[in-house]
């Protein structure tokens, strides 16, 4: 066992407050990966960080097994910011040439890096339909589309249309009298690269995107994707030159203007809600989606036993955690969703849909775990009257 303590590790440990750890082990006990048998022990990693056992944590598969779902941080009695520790350690690993194994052959990471180079003119707005009112350069509200058009092109066999949610979000904004700015020059937010350890390309994307939104002179930035929202609200903060716009999730924005919307009552539906880890535990947005669902006359929301702060993540994270443990977690979660008796599962992140749809493809489990999925923006937009 090597015991070379580098100053950078000590610095990371300090920022993640690992010194506060008193070795209670709640993090490992609660970790969804450890629970299904994965070789990940947050407690041991925190301990190794404190002891300066750099090699033990940096060059170790466990570093990339973490879903960064934040469940351990919720339980930690002393407030160790485990997510921050993992994010920083992965940057060290990346510098040493250690990258997570992507189940898609690195396709999505490559796309992100090509966008980071930014030498091409993307065709990312071809999904806009005529009934959607948008503007291209300046406006009060900027709507961040995220990469749903890429996901739909990459997962054509999943029978999910993550773009529907993007269109629905614009429809909702239009109904509230907002003509949002939607830019063809948007690039991937870099969330996955950052969590894979590639800070260099993340920063290229961050600088471009922040400049783009600043140049639109928007006062509010509305985001649909939970991961983009986390990146904008937390990781992009140091990149703003002036004061950043108000950054809101689509559910927050709509919930704030709920009185201006009228809904029709259709047939009644029972639904359950999956809290995306980025939206819930990372940003604390638990209520707005529920406020919206409860405001809809035809929707009856039933909660899963593990919801809100205790919700279980879709186990997909950053295109780097796909393995049998992730599958186990997804199947468990889908069983839980089905056990509520809900007709469909509502979520607020395109990745939740992608990863659950992938789990549902299991030919042995089809009916046991199959449940239709909808994005929350789609559900709300469809209930609009007129």
């Amino acid at each position: 066992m090597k015991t070379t303590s580098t100053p950078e590790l000590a610095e990371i440990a300090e920022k993640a407050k690992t010194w506060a750890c008193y070795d209670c082990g709640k993090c490992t006990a609660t970790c969804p990966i450890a629970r299904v048998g994965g070789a990940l022990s947050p407690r041991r990693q925190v301990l190794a960080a404190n002891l300066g056992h750099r090699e033990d944590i940096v060059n170790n598969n466990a570093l990339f097994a973490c879903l960064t779902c934040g469940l351990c941080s919720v339980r930690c009695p002393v407030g160790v910011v485990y997510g921050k520790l993992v994010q920083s350690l992965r940057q060290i690993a990346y510098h040493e040439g250690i990258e997570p194994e992507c189940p898609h052959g690195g396709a999505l990471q490559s796309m992100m890096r090509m966008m980071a180079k930014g030498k091409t003119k993307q065709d990312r707005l071809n999904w806009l339909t005529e009934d959607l009112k948008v503007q291209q350069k300046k406006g009060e509200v900027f709507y961040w589309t995220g990469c749903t058009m890429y996901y739909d092109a990459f997962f054509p066999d999943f029978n999910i249309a993550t773009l529907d949610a993007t269109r629905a979000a614009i429809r909702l904004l239009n109904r509230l009298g907002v003509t949002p700015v939607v830019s063809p020059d948007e690039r991937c937010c870099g969330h996955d690269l950052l969590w894979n350890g590639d800070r260099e390309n993340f920063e290229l994307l961050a600088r471009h995107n922040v400049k783009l939104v600043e140049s639109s002179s928007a006062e509010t930035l509305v985001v649909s994707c939970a991961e983009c929202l986390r990146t904008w609200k937390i990781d992009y903060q140091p990149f703003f030159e002036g004061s950043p716009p108000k950054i809101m999730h689509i559910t927050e924005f709509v919930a704030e203007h709920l009185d201006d919307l009228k809904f029709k009552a259709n047939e009644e539906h029972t639904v359950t809600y999956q809290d995306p880890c980025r939206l819930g535990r990372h940003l604390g947005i638990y209520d707005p989606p529920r406020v919206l669902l409860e405001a809809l006359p035809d929707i009856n929301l039933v909660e899963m036993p593990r919801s809100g702060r205790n919700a279980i993540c879709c186990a997909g994270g950053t295109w780097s955690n796909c393995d049998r443990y992730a599958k186990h977690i997804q199947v468990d979660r889908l069983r839980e969703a089905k056990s509520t008796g809900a007709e469909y599962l509502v979520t607020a992140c395109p990745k939740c849909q992608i990863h659950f749809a992938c789990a549902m493809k299991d030919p042995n489990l089809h009916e046991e775990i199959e449940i239709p999925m909808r994005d929350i923006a789609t559900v709300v937009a469809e209930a609009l009257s007129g």
Partner: protein
Amino acid sequence: MNPTKTKRSKKAKSTKWNPNIVVFACNWCSYAGADTAGVSRIQHQPHFKMIRVMCSGRIQPGFVFKAFEKGADGVLVSGCHIGDCHYIFGNERALEQFDKTKNMVRLLGLEDGRLRLEWISAAEGARFAQVINEFTDQVRKLGPSPLNTDNRKR
């Protein structure tokens, strides 16, 4: 002025630009087709790097994107003719993957002409040479890839 320098720049001007192309070829047909072209001494342009895979079905979007990410000016995906796959249906999978790849490349804003799919059998040495010549000329006309910036070595 340094006379050799002038000479060199003149020379550089007269040389035409050659693209950097990545060719993915399956072990059983297209790679053998390239071999046939070689043993038959059929001349073709040499501006490509060939990557042999066991089956064209292995060529997932990530492979092609990686090539473009690293600055390839064109990518050619090749395999056995439909119906002739050594693994029965690998090339049908290749076709599915290729469609996906093409849609993504289009979204990203790279020209369609930089990516091509061709079925080349082990006997078609002449066709291999023809496809390579055509594709090289096509990519040459498009010029260097906008992503060919060589900004990192990784």
